[in-house]
């Protein structure tokens, strides 16, 4: 039963204003949680919407299918939209609610739209989902009074209706407080094991905590496709750390492949990528997924063709926000 798989092949998308949002994106996404990591404006949402049947790709193909079956059984996501929607759960990056409607009422309405025709079945599903997202106690209250996190969980409940085989979750943790975020991620991790769950985010921790596989995307291109643990392991011994003063940074950046800088108690911590020891003041550190991300973004690993040397600190700061 774990054979669901989403195959994205050569998908490109250019907007009428000339922005090249996706360039020949090819990915294979197996069942389970899959993280799509990238900075703002990388093309994540465009890809998510294409997968959620809400946007058209200029070229390429996307299929959703059961690997073990003949390919004829697989769904063409770009064309068989109606069939995809039957098994799709989608949580958009931003969404509103009808402020004067209660969660229970609106969820019931969505359940009907998802094809749960029987009133009794709808009632059961709505109750179960509202309990699952922990909104059961406030089900009678108007959505207008919900906090951001509660709304987000309501969105998950909507997305979960009808036990979707394909779950698209677009930047769900943006704007959640830490407690909400934890609660939310727990919820996602419980999603069916036989579903494809694609989570886009610009927060590295979201991926490292949840996803078995991930891809890094920037400027419409997939830079890295990997399993987080293995990617981290492969960096072992190549990430070096040094604490410097602010004034030293330009010189260090000139000489070394700086992948990230952080402020720590008034001093600057730089991390550089190097196969060998970059020098005496640097110490080797245990890499984490953030190092994978920044190394990829700066072109040290992955498919980025144009290596930016030396890496620009401004850029690091931007992605670190």
């Amino acid at each position, binding site marked *: 039963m774990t054979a669901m798989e989403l195959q994205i092949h050569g998908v490109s998308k250019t907007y*009428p204003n000339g922005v090249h949002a996706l360039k020949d994106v090819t990915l294979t996404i197996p069942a389970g949680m899959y993280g799509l990591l990238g900075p703002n404006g990388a093309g994540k949402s465009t890809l998510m*919407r294409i997968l*959620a*049947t*809400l*946007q*058209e790709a200029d070229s390429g193909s996307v299929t959703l299918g059961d690997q073990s079956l003949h390919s004829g059984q697989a769904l063409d996501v770009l*064309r068989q*939209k*109606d069939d995809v*929607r*039957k098994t*799709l*759960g*989608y*949580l*958009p990056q*931003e*969404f*509103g*609610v*009808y*402020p004067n409607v209660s969660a229970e009422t609106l969820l019931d*309405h*969505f359940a*009907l*739209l*998802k*094809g*749960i*025709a*029987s009133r009794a*079945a*709808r009632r*059961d*599903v709505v109750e*179960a*989902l509202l*309990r*699952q997202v*922990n909104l059961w*106690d*406030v089900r009678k*209250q*108007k959505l*207008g*009074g*919900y*906090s951001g*996190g*509660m709304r987000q969980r309501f*969105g998950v409940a*909507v997305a*979960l209706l*009808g*036990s979707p085989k394909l779950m*698209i979750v677009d930047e769900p943790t943006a704007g959640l407080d830490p*407690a909400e975020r934890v609660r939310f991620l*727990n919820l996602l991790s*419980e999603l069916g094991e036989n579903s494809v769950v694609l989570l886009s985010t610009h927060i590295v921790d979201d991926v490292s905590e949840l996803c078995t596989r991930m891809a890094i995307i920037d400027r419409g291109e997939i830079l890295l496709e990997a399993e987080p643990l293995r990617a981290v392991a492969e960096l072992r011994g190549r990430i070096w750390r040094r604490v410097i003063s602010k004034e030293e940074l330009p010189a260090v950046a000139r000489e070394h492949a700086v992948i990230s800088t952080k402020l720590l108690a008034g001093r600057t911590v730089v991390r550089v990528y190097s196969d060998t020891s970059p020098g005496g003041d640097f110490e080797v550190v245990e890499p984490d997924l953030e190092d994978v991300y920044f190394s990829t973004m700066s072109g040290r690993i992955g498919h980025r063709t144009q290596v930016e040397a030396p890496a620009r600190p401004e850029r690091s700061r931007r992605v670190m926000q």
Partner: protein
Amino acid sequence: MKLWGIFRFELAYQLRRPWPWLAFAVLVVFSFVSTRVAIVPVTLPQDFILNSPFIITAVTVFSCQIWLLIAPVVAGDAAARDVHTGLYPLVSTSPVSKAEYLGGRFLAAFVLHALILLGVQVGSLLAAHAPGANPDIIGPFRPAAYLAAYGFIALTNAFIATTFQFSAALVSGRPIASYVGSLGLFFLSYPVTFTLYLSGLGQRALLADPIGVMAIMNEMMSNWTIVEKNVRMFTLEGPMLWNRLLWLGISLVTIAVVYLRYRFAHRTATDPLSRLVRRLRGTAPTADSAAARTAVSVPQVRQSLGFATHVRQTLAIARVSFWMIAKTPAGLFLLVAFPMFLVLVLTIESQHWGVPLQPRTGYLLTRFLTSPLTQAADFRVIIPLLIVYFAGELVWRERDTGLSENVDATPAPEWVLFGGKFLGLSLVLVALMAMLTMTGMVVQVMASFHDFQIGLYLRILLGLQLPEYLLFAALALMLHVAVNQKYVGLVVSLVAYFLIIFSSFLGLHHNLLVYSGSPGWSFTDMRGFAGTVGPWLWFKLYWGAWALLLVVVARLLWVRGKESGFGKRLQIARGRFNRATVATAALAAGLILSLGGFVFYNTNVLNEYITDGEMVERRVDYERRYGKYEGIPQPQRTATKLHVEIHPSRRVATIRGSYRLVNRDTVPIDSVHLEPAFYVETRVTFDRPARAVVVDKKLGHSIYVLDEPLQPGDSLTLSFDVKLERHGFRNRGSRESGAGIAILENGTYFTNGALPVIGYRPIRELWSAEDRRKHGLPRQLTLTPPGDIDPTVTADAPATFEAIVSTDADQVAVAPGELRRRWNEGGRRYFHYVSDVPINGMDVFFSANYTVHRERWNGVDVQVFVHPGHTKNLERLLRGARASLDYYSAQFGPYPYRFLQIVEQPGNFLGMGVDGSGVVTSGEGTLLLNPPDDGFDVLFEVIAHEIGHQWWGMQLKPAWAEGGGVISEGLAWYSTMQLVKNVKGREALRRLMSFMREPNPWPPIRTGFPLLRAIDPWANYRKGPYAMHALSEYVGETKVNGALRTLVEKKTSSLATTLDMYRELQAVTPDSLKPLLHDLFEVNTFWTFDTKQASAVQTETGDWQVTFEIEARKVVADSAGKETELPMTEWVELGVFAAAEQGQVLGKPLYVEKHRIRSGRQAITVTVSDKPARGGIDPYNLLDWEEGDNIEAIEVKQ
């Protein structure tokens, strides 16, 4: 300065958006077209000047209405865009003051509106000066006219409208709410103001009109003469000025209140209703119960996406959509406030001539509660305007909320999403129909009328009215979907609506070409639906098929997800072209072709379809080809004999008849010109050898040459067979189709228009000056037709008449004449009507299930035919008829005919008319009048007026000339006044005169031509009778009536003009009163008297000395409106009256004598023997026709 910066930014921002330009373009086109083809519903003078200040102003006023509807988002967007887009927190925390922010935005909106409204003047200018305009009707370019219209109307409206649009959007936080603000102004401007106007407030009601449609148009339309309409400059004065000042003031106050209440603060965007509920309940925003989550298993449920589920989804969306609309202020307005307003309208307007009407269901429905979509005559126009708005709200609902992506990702198909919304809107309309039913019933209960006929309500409202709105709802939804920009969608839908209602002005007359067009249905108590529903239905089915196609298009173009480029949408649409869609589209196309074909077969093959343009061409051809025969010697008809067989159940009638034609000329006649009627089959034979040399069926003229000319004094007999039968149905229903269709199951009515006519008829010539000019026909003076009386009456010489009419056994057939015999034969009823006295005018024929009343008056056969349910007023009619015959015969000469018929003519119209000698017809509506037992009995007066026409119009025939209306209508009302005074007394005459003084339908026009040349209705119907009444009081009733009697005797065989009448009046007027006669008839004189003070003291002898302080003024107005004050030395009545009894204005007259009155203030003292109560100058309104300040209470001093 920040305000300036905000202003500039907003102006630049919106100028780069499409909607201001779209609105501008629409206004240019609208004002251009309405100037050129005179859409503006005004009674234009025949020889109008295209760029007269009047037209420029009128076009500006009406364009303002259009602008009010299409451009509100300019102000709405300026007010609420920041809230709507979520930019608001950034703005409200910036160091900009409330005044700068709102001020800049408001100013920008106002300036944008002002710029958009320039389009109206651009269009007006283009209409006059761009190529294609007729140079004959272009006056000199007068910049002041454009400036005045723009400054006084457009700019003030821009300010007023910006205020309310801006406020509505600001308060609600939604730009589109500005449209609701606009609709509010629109609703006030016409429906509410008009209702208030009719409710007796009169001029004061005009203050309620915020954009000046009623206020300005009423002033210009009714108080300007035809000459003034061409030359007078428009400026703000009188009621117009007050109206503008009042609304500018209201706007300023509104701005101030909104400004003071506005806060730069976080907005909890909810509707007012739930805000109120929350306030009452006191619930705070929801707190999250962060309870530890227990693992819950979600049950696996079956998803079914079959048809049944889709239907349930559709219904669910429909329900949600319905409540969404119903709960908004606009929805509440439509479903609650609007019906309540209608109750008010119905209560006020369910009266005629000041007398209440019985609120019968059929009447309420046809008169007030229904109207075809293609007509936008009155307050009902608000319904389509709201449909447009609701359609936009529904289509944009998910996207406005931000929930669209969630919904679009569900497996609900597009047709469910669209269909659900369409159904939701339909439910709103069904609810509206239910509320309209309630409205009607509430009005009926209030009038203690309990014959509700709920079935009729449901059949008409749900069966006939709802489909009109559903068709439009489908169109509006589809347009909103296709356009995919909310404001632009609104404008495009409105433009589509304007195209529908103005289609006839754009040359689209065939109902197959105008969306939702169809011939109308009708319903009356007598006729029922009279077979009008069938043709209506065929057209509606045809348009229903189009609507189905629109729905298919909407499904294909339905925006799902983020792709909004039109190319991408077409690409997606191609992808959606599945088998079901193709099948539906094919079905719709097939239905369109087959139903359209069937309709076309009926309207254009079975019946002749003639466009208006074609009709004009034919009239031109008719005049060109046969005009040379006008006035040539032709035999005159002296006798008509008919056998008429009416078959109501088969809807067929045949007429077999003959004319006796006599050569009354001095030369032999060698050919007979004959014009058979259109739409019927006619065969003619002569009793002597004759051959047809011209048979022109298209233009309707034939010429028969007699082998042997008809010698002077000789006669011949022309026999003819006519068959009246309808074939299929026609584009415009029964009105257009003349005689052929009027044979109905109950309520058959047709005229001798179905019979052939002798000779060329100038009445068929083109009469519109503009049309004549266009076709190069010689100019001719055109006049107002003489009112009630059909103009054809003068065409035919009087002839004796005899008809045997048969009909089905359960009906009564009517033809002019005394009823000689009645019998049954072969299951049919026969009636033999004869008039040995030659009769004039139209011969009318009826067949219906009538209740018949007959009586004799001095040997005259008085016959009354009314619908069995309408007998309530029978006795009133008879009282009026008897009194009229008595009095008029004694005064103006004997009643010449042997019969008098009063026939209820099928049709809901209110009014009575005279078709020909001895016949008075009355609309069904008239017999629904419910006059109070004491008080003004309008039926007595109106029947007296119509019977007066048996002298004035039937015996004395006015010439087709200026002043003709004074002879027919003026003398008919004068006779009525004399009758009322003599039979019912002075108090009844006072009531009649105060009824005549009502501004509706004819407000007084002080300027214009004098009575001898009168052409406007107020002069004909009001001033003429007033002047005659004054004369009869000054000169003497016997003398004046005697003069009229002489006039009738002198003019038995020729046409009369006001000059003939004036000659007779001069002959009986003593020299001392000649100046008064001159003032009344030869110039436009107006006297104004005012009793300032009246007091009395008792003398020692017990008499009372009464002193009046009075003021007098006399002016003469010329046709251009210029008034000149003249010194006055008139003999005017002064009256003193005893205390009045209940229900009277004046008591017993103690003193009524004429005094010489000069201009200005003066005091007059008279002595009376009894205690005086009231008194004053000109107490009977002989010279001063305005009521109000002539009579005052007399103050008794010790």
